[in-house]
């Protein structure tokens, strides 16, 4: 070890800005290093998060008062379409890929991804797709058909500006990059683990990413096929979804949601992975039921391909499909419930440390459970019939995607920021940000449950004066949305402030156990000087206290 250290000529670096390999903008543009690409993904995602949040804020300003006229109807359609599309494809996807490509090689003790150039391809194709979508505003107006672009509205006869073409093209190229990165992640996890790192010993985060990558690889091509058809309908005059010539708008719904429902799990799985690392470390306990946690993830991966029709309960498919998909949709709640149970049981009796990261994870647990419960409600067909296309749906998926995904991944940012940058994030700013985030988020979206039950449909440009409760609840929601956007800006400010002023972190500031904390903070370009043989789920515990730190029996004899 000492000999090896001597031979390394460069002095130890404890700030990512001083890593010699990362100096200069060219080193970032041409990089095939998984850490640089991971950071590029995450920074781009937060950039688009601010754009998407401001679009969302505009929606809330328009709905603040009845009969308001902040933007006109056409602009409003473009804004909610771009809000949804941006948040799903240009915030959610790159954020999860950023975490995945940054952490996976470090956690399994590899030097890089299996295909570093393909990794770089995935990132730049994503940026290209995002630029193409936003370029549509300069080319005669953005897309207007909502993020799931139902025909006939998305057909040429109804939307004849080019925005919808840009939408389809942009998501198509981004989808190609996503498939490439999905394949890359699977191959990395299956062929590049360190000696002794069996699949039973990889961190839960890696398990979630493995399943996530399978979902990406096998569901994105469904979206791509649907996008090709809508694009051909619009530019080559085919009739796939054009009912006047025999096409079927319903076919789009089937194809889109065959991708769209797995997509929900694509977005949430990495967040679950992050929380599965954060909660044990800040409870000072092993994750409760790690095996069943991995197994339930596999179950969700398979089941998520068989529930898409619950997005289409009101399209008149007949009784049998409704019952079948109601049952599968109820079924998928079981493995999800097991996860919530496991996280709670991990905290139970633990020595809790309420860091900002842990606070986000705990808020995630509560909010995600609310979103999950309202989701199970939709599997019950009469409830779905009553509440579909209302603000209740908007409340439900924001609880899952903001309260669930964003909270858990921001928890992950607080947790892994010291690893990536070498600096700790400010806990003071973090506490302010956390509480503003909780108040702003719940204030904005909880009342939407009630608005939905009171009958407010989603995607309306405005609403008349005198609807019972609508004006008051919308006003309250809009006020809280300002706090929500403020908390996100404060979060970005904290990222930048801590980069320059944060305390030096050292390799393992949280006393964690997984392999990425063995590397320097920031990790050297090769990740590890020397990868140890892994003998349990907690390799760093083994290094410090000798083997036998957890119940992984087979490891102790290896």
């Amino acid at each position, binding site marked *: 070890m000492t*000999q*090896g250290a001597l*031979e390394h000529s460069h002095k130890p670096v404890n700030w990512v800005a001083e890593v010699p390999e990362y100096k200069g903008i060219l080193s970032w543009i041409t990089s095939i290093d998984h850490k640089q690409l991971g950071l590029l993904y995450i920074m781009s995602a937060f950039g688009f998060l601010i754009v998407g949040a401001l679009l969302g804020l505009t929606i809330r300003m328009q709905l603040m008062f009845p009969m308001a006229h902040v933007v006109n109807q056409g602009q409003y359609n473009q804004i909610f379409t771009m809000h949804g599309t941006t948040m799903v494809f240009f915030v959610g996807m790159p954020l999860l890929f950023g975490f995945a490509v940054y952490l996976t090689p470090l956690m399994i*003790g*590899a*030097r890089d991804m*299996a*295909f570093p150039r*393909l990794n770089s391809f995935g990132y730049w194709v994503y940026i290209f797709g995002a630029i193409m979508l936003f370029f549509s505003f300069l080319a005669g107006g953005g897309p207007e058909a909502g993020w799931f672009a139902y025909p006939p509205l998305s057909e040429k006869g109804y939307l004849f500006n080019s925005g919808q073409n840009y939408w389809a093209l942009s998501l198509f190229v981004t989808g190609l990059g996503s*498939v490439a990165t*999905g*394949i*890359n992640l*699977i*191959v990395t996890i*299956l*062929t*590049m*683990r*360190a*000696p*002794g*790192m*069996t*699949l039973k010993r990889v961190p839960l985060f890696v398990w979630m990413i493995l399943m996530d990558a399978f979902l990406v*690889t*096998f*569901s*994105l*091509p*469904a979206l*791509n*096929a*649907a996008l*090709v*058809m809508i694009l*051909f309908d619009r530019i*080559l*005059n*085919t*009739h*796939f979804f054009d009912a006047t*010539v*025999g*096409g*079927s708008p319903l*076919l789009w719904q089937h*194809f889109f949601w*065959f991708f769209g429902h797995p997509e929900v799990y694509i977005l949430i799985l990495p967040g679950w992975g992050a929380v599965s690392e954060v909660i044990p470390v800040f409870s000072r306990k092993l994750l409760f039921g790690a095996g069943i946690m991995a197994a339930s993830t596999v179950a969700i991966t398979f089941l998520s391909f068989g529930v898409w029709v619950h997005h289409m309960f009101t399209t008149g498919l007949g009784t049998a499909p409704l019952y079948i998909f109601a049952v599968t949709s109820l079924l998928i709640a079981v493995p999800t419930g097991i996860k919530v149970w496991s996280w709670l049981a991990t905290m139970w009796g633990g020595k809790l440390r309420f860091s900002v990261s842990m606070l986000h994870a705990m808020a995630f647990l509560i909010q995600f459970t609310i979103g999950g419960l309202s989701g199970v409600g939709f599997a019950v067909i009469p409830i779905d019939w009553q509440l579909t296309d209302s603000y209740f749906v908007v409340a439900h998926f924001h609880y899952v995607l903001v309260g669930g995904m964003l909270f858990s991944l921001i928890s992950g940012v607080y947790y892994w920021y010291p690893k990536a940058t070498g600096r700790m994030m400010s806990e003071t700013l973090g506490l302010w940000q956390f509480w503003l985030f909780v108040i702003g988020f719940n204030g904005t979206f909880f009342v939407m449950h009630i608005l939905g039950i009171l009958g407010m449909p989603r995607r309306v440009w405005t609403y008349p004066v005198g609807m019972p409760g609508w004006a008051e609840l919308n006003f309250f929601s809009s006020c809280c949305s300002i706090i929500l956007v403020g908390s996100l800006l404060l979060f970005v400010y904290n990222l930048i402030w801590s980069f320059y002023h944060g305390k030096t972190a050292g390799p393992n500031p949280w006393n964690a156990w997984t392999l990425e904390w063995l590397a320097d903070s920031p990790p050297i370009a*090769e*990740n*590890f*000087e*020397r*990868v140890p*043989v892994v003998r349990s789920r907690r390799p760093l515990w083994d290094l410090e206290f000798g083997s036998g730190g957890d119940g992984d029996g087979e490891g102790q004899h*290896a």
Partner: protein
Amino acid sequence: MHNTAHASAPSQPKHPLDTNLKVDRNILGMALFIGSESVFFLLLILAYVNFHNQYGTGAMAAWHLDVVKTGIFSIALFASSGTLWLAERAHAKQSGMAFFWMIVTIGLGTTFIAGQGMEYAELIRENLTISRDMFGSTFFTLTGFHGFHVIVGLILLSIALWIMARGKKQHEITEVGLTCVSMYWHFVDVVWVAVFSVVYLWRFIK
């Protein structure tokens, strides 16, 4: 110091505790890519099937396809899978025949594409275009994407051939590289088995 490089580099001997999948990462990557592509083609085929009996136009239009002519060109494509297998076998034996069988494979693939081009020209002359009806939309989208994949396969095969030809020895392309190209080519071939059955042979089922 020899220990500092990561343990899973292919050039290094396997660690006794290595539990990774014992398959080349390029081959695994290609297999996953093929899986992903299968979903894409499955949906295009489902769209064709879904609209086949719409207003009867699909089933009627399918009768106008020239099964015999396309069948002959299909045999060229199916045969190319066999010749590529021969090329791979010859390459493994470091035999000069690899070069020959690669050229035959590319020739057969090009024949198939030429046949598809002639078929398209004939249909368009008969005013059966992509925008005419549901049959046109689904037929040209499905077979067109397959044709596009054949062309990509021909480009890959040509690159492999070029690498073979460029070197002083003929064996410069690795076995793995050739295996990946051939996996892709066989996949494109198998897709055509499905497409040909659904589009051209369905009408014979009473």
